[in-house]
């Protein structure tokens, strides 16, 4: 398929707070090819999360075209969108966002509970995903029993367990020490290289940016030419 994974045309997002209007994104044109490892950089408040949320179908644009994986997702209903996310999107948050009352295994299993898979098939998928992130021996652990890096790896396992086409990560290393951050980035790179996942990564981290195949830079809601890494 030659079609781009993500295709944004003249995308605009305005937040309304009381009577105030905040233009979070404006005049966004962007294409992400299948198999790309895209890094999105920019100062705080520049609209990176907003853009990622739009691509993930978590939020809706004010205007513009939002083609993701061949679908104009701004036209889907809430419940269609939920089903679409479950099938196509793996999302990794900065704050891990594991469910504290569930074990690592149960957290990773969550997306699969929405599928028709049998309990045995679910178990196989979960074990495979946790093995991939190197946590096969931590399945019965609760989030509070894991380190930050381990928690984020469980979160990645949860994001990929349903085999999504697109992996979106919003500053996944923001809360991690350098060593853990490196492990997380390695996994994302491996997902891109070995499993052909299209990865869209929002980060401040230059080492993260170096692993990407494509880099974009956002400033005040506008896409800029990315400055060379050495200068950023």
């Amino acid at each position, binding site marked *: 398929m030659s079609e781009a994974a993500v295709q944004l045309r003249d995308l605009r997002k305005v937040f309304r707070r009381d009577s105030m209007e905040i233009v979070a994104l404006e005049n966004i044109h962007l294409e992400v090819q299948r198999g790309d490892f895209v890094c999105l950089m920019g100062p705080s408040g520049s609209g990176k999360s907003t853009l990622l949320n739009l691509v993930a179908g978590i939020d809706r644009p004010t205007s513009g075209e939002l083609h993701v994986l061949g679908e104009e997702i701004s036209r889907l209903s809430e419940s269609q969108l939920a089903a679409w996310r479950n099938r196509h999107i793996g999302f990794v948050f900065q704050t891990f966002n594991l*469910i504290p009352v569930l074990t690592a295994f149960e957290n990773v299993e969550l997306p699969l*509970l929405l599928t028709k898979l049998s309990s045995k098939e679910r178990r196989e998928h979960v074990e495979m995903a946790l093995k991939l992130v190197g946590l096969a021996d931590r399945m019965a652990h609760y989030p509070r029993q894991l380190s930050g890096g381990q928690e984020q790896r469980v979160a990645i396992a949860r994001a990929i367990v349903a085999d999504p086409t697109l992996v979106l990560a919003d500053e996944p290393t923001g809360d991690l020490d350098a060593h853990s951050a490196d492990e997380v980035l390695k996994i994302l790179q491996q997902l891109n290289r070995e499993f052909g996942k299209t990865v869209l990564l929002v980060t401040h981290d230059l080492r993260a940016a170096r692993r990407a195949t494509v880099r974009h830079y956002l400033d005040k809601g506008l896409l800029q030419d990315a400055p060379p890494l050495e200068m950023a």
Partner: protein
Amino acid sequence: MKFLTLIFKNAFRNRRRTLLTVLSVAVSLFLLTTLVTVLTELYRTPEGADAALRIVIRHSVGLAVLLPEAHRQKIAAMPGVVDVMAMSWFGGIYVDERNFFAQFAVDADKLFDMFTENRIPPEQREAFVRERQAAVAGRELADRFGWKVGERVTLKATIYPRDVELILRGFYTGPDETQLFFHWDYLKETMSRYNSVGTFWVKARSQEDVDRLVAEIDGTFRNTNAPTKTETEKGFLLGFVSMMGNVKLLITVISSAVVFTILLVAANTMAMSIRERAPEIAVMKTLGYQSRLLLGLIVAESVFLSLAGWLLGGVGARVLFGVVKVSRYTGGMLAQFEVQPATLAGGFVLAVALGVLSCIFPAYRATRVTISEALRRVA
């Protein structure tokens, strides 16, 4: 069903809070079940075809005024009357005033034909009928005082001028085992001048006879010097309850207050618990969970908790009152104290409603919030 683990683990996310909530629902439902049981027991009338055929006749002025013994023959002669039995309240004291229980002087040979729901071994019944001073008591009453067959029981008179000396000849079992019966003939003999009767009990041949007799008996005695008031047994017994004032209203008011209070307690807990997990709800939505599924999971959790309260408080009350004989401490006012299946079912429905109502509004709101909104609030 694959969501059960999730529901269960969410329910126990804060163990102490969950425990306190379940306990307060349990205590409230226990209280409610008890109150409703008091009410149903107060209004309980003997069941069965036999009871529906019974008629009670008393003096039109009230129970304190007695009827002449002579009424018995006249009533017995009426068509449709199968049997007539005299029954007088004795109201004596056994050893101590606190030992209150119901005592009746009756036509001994008629007693067990009139109240067929009371069962007694034939030889004990014979011994009771044969001997003037004999008495029979309910099993529960006998257990209360540790009575044995052959034991002598003296009842100190309060209404009548002389005490009665009785010999226990048997113990019956039945729906109301808190009463004692002895011979009306013996009472009459002891109290030489008192050949009067508190009430006459009639067993009619058929339901049609009951309706006819109720009017006919009063008509017969209207212009005598002892006019009567005739009622079905059920009407007669419910008359006693209404003498206590509006118990039903009182209990209904208290029960409503109890229900309202648990609703507030449960709603508060659920609101807290839901607010806490707003970000988790957003995460689950990101993973593809639909709002209505998430709403269903929260409702299921809330219903699970209130049903746990029902199991502890409602079913617990039934088990407890099955073991502890509460009727013993009501001085014969409540012959039985048994939580009815209908009361349990009512508690179940209430618990489910409580579970749904206590969480539905905050849950609905929490599951409708857009994901990015909910996630921003944490970050």
